[in-house]
């Protein structure tokens, strides 16, 4: 079956430092990878969508300068939160898909910022 792993599951970083998180698809080819953030008391908000052979598309309020994403092959993607501050805390989900209408999610990386 289709599985998505995320690493780390939980991390703490100091305010102003950066943190990299990874997403791995197993059992299928992740032609698209979407990164979401769930801030406290909010729902999942799309940060960016990465599709193989296309430019990464960032949503409003999110930028490549703040959340650089790498999607080097059909099974792996990573995203870095640069200069993390309190408002960046939350659960970061990776959603991978090979059929555009269905995403399979990892368990998320929970980021705490001190």
């Amino acid at each position, binding site marked *: 079956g289709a599985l*998505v792993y995320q690493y780390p599951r939980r991390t703490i970083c100091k305010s102003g430092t950066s943190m990299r998180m990874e997403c791995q698809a197993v059992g299928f080819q992740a032609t*698209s990878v*979407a990164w*979401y953030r769930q801030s406290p008391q*909010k*729902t*999942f*908000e*799309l940060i960016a*969508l990465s*599709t193989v052979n296309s430019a990464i598309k960032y949503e409003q309020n999110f930028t490549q300068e703040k959340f650089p994403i790498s999607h080097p092959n059909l099974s792996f993607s990573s995203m870095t939160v640069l200069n993390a501050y309190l408002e960046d805390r939350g659960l970061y*989900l990776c*959603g991978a*898909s090979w059929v*555009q*209408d*269905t*995403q*399979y*999610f*990892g*368990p*998320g990386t929970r980021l705490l910022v001190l």
Partner: protein
Amino acid sequence: GDSVTQKEGLVTLTEGLPVMLNCTYQTIYSNAFLFWYVHYLNESPRLLLKSSTDNKRTEHQGFHATLHKSSSSFHLQKSSAQLSDSALYYCALTWGNTGKLIFGLGTTLQVQP
């Protein structure tokens, strides 16, 4: 803009009773896909149901939902709640081949003995 509304934040009911979680959506696109994901604590959100066909019932693991484009609704139902159904349920929307998902706020279902 495109949005998904789940008006209940928390639904509490007794085991054996029927479940209905509400989901309505707003989009300008006619080729919308609607999803229900179930999210257990510390696990991955898992796809429960999906549909893009108007007025067609879709079923999985005892749950069912029917997309009604006339009322922009995709309510999740189950005839008899089980304790193991206690979880957070998200309704989500996408359209065309965008690959973007718009999530509702989620509804926590608590099933009591």
